Structure formats: structure tokens, C-alpha cells
């Protein structure tokens, strides 16, 4: 068993209204000095067997096909 994490973030040039909402809420709660917030998604995938380059390549295909929309999002894959 191994855990692979796929982080998906809105592309820098894409407006992130949810991040803006969070950024707006922080100073109202007394948290200051936060100049930007971007909100993304984190997927934790439990894989059976060994982690190999082929398995990671397959996870990248999952990320490109379903977990992210490449038009508006970037993703990164990491092994825990």
C-alpha cells in the first residue's frame, strides 16, 4: 500500500473567487498580512503494490483526465 497525493490548483492567470472570499474573511477575523489566497484541491490516492515510475505515470494520466481540468488547473503528484 502506498499513498500518492495529487494537488490541483487553479492556474495563476485564472480568477479564483473562492480564494478571494477566504482572503477577504481573514482580516475580518483579525488575521492580517495575508496578501493572497489561492484555493485548490488535494486528492489522496491509496495504491496497492509498489510505487513504480509506471504507476506514477498512470496517476498523472488520472490527474490529466479526471482530477484536473487542464484548461483552468495545474496539478502536481507526490508520494507520501
Amino acid at each position, binding site marked *: 500500500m502506498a499513498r500518492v497525493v495529487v494537488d490541483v490548483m*487553479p492556474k495563476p492567470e485564472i*480568477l479564483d*473567487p473562492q480564494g478571494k472570499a477566504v482572503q477577504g474573511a481573514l482580516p475580518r477575523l483579525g488575521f492580517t498580512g495575508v496578501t493572497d489566497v489561492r484555493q485548490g484541491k488535494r486528492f489522496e490516492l491509496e495504491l496497492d503494490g509498489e510505487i513504480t515510475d509506471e504507476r506514477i505515470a498512470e496517476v498523472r494520466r488520472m490527474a490529466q483526465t479526471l482530477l484536473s*481540468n487542464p*484548461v*483552468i488547473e495545474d496539478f502536481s503528484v507526490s508520494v507520501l
Partner: protein
Amino acid sequence: MKIGVVTFPGSLDDADAVRAVRHAGAEAVSLWHGDGDLRGVDAVVLPGGFSYGDYLRCGAIARFAPVMAEVIDAAGRGMPVLGICNGFQILCESHLLPGALIRNDHRKFGCLDQRLRIENNRTAWTSQYDEGAEITIVLKNGEGSFVADAETLDRLEGEGRVVARYLGNPNGSLRDIAGVTNEAGNVVGLMPHPEHAIEDLCGPGVDGIGFFTSVLHALV
């Protein structure tokens, strides 16, 4: 003339779309997301709603529904396909149309009578409008802001593939784009809802019926 209307789990506007199809004079055929064939229809409408609860991204799960394999295949062969609201999101996720729909820039769900200008009346779904016609139909969405990179937007405008633009941008859509078409003009995605504006009794008028009568001419 048979027009299919797909119901996904979470579709909301399939009944109104069926009604609009009938009102335009065509036979409406209800299609289910799990269907493996299109039951001999001549065109397909993907209706509004929240397919699969908008989980992951709007339209992202619906795009892989069994019926969508058939829709994508038929669209590639020239079958007219209209995606309204969530249907537009599904068409973008399916890569049948460029761009994506993200959360409205003002972060609120919008529900209003929206003025649009028809920019392209050469598609299968807009031929019954005059080019430049200004119409009012219903707009209701939380994630209706159309985005694409500048190169894609330039291409869409250069090729005349912007089908409709907002008069008064309601959601932050880039270049006021409310609807786009594919290169062949058979696939159209539109964020506002023409199916809610087909009768004077309810809705803001009858400006929406032209989408459904247009496709009948396209199919003759």
C-alpha cells in the same frame, strides 16, 4: 424530427427542455445518462442542472457517463448538440467546446432575465435569429464565468465562434461570452436558458424558442 434530451442524476431543466422541443414542433426523446445508444435521435440537448451534484467540477463526472460516449461520437459526425448551462459545462469538460466555466466573479448565484446579442446565426441552433439580434432569456448559475486563454479567445472571435454575448456582463465571463460553437457549428454551448423563455405565460418572453426551431431547419 426527434430531439433527445439527456437526464443525468441531478439534471434540473430536462423537463423544460423536453417541453421546449415539443413546443418547437419536434418529437422529444428522453435519454438517460446510462444509455448506450441515442435511440435514433437527430439532435441532442444537454440540459441545465447539477449533474452528479457538481462533484469534482461542474460537468466533470457527467462527461464520462455512458451516453456521453455516444454524444461525443455523434457530435463528431455532425449531429447538432446544444448544451445549456450545466450542459455547456459538460461540453467544455468533454473537449467538444473550448474553454471552461468557473465560479461567478461576484461569488453569488445569479438568477435574472439577461439580455444577449446573437453574434453568430450560422450555427445549427441559431439560424432563426438575425445576426445582432438582442434577446432576453433567463440566466441562473453559480459557475457561469466563461474563461479561456487569450489565444483561444482570439481564435474564437476571429473565427466567428462566439454565438452570443452578454449585454451587461453578469458573471465575469471573459469578453462577455455567453455561448460558443465548435468549428463545424453543430455543437453550441450556452450559459443562459432559452428553454425557460418559450411562452409568455412564464419567463421573460418567447425569445428562447428560436434555438429549438433553428435546429429543425438544420435537420431538414
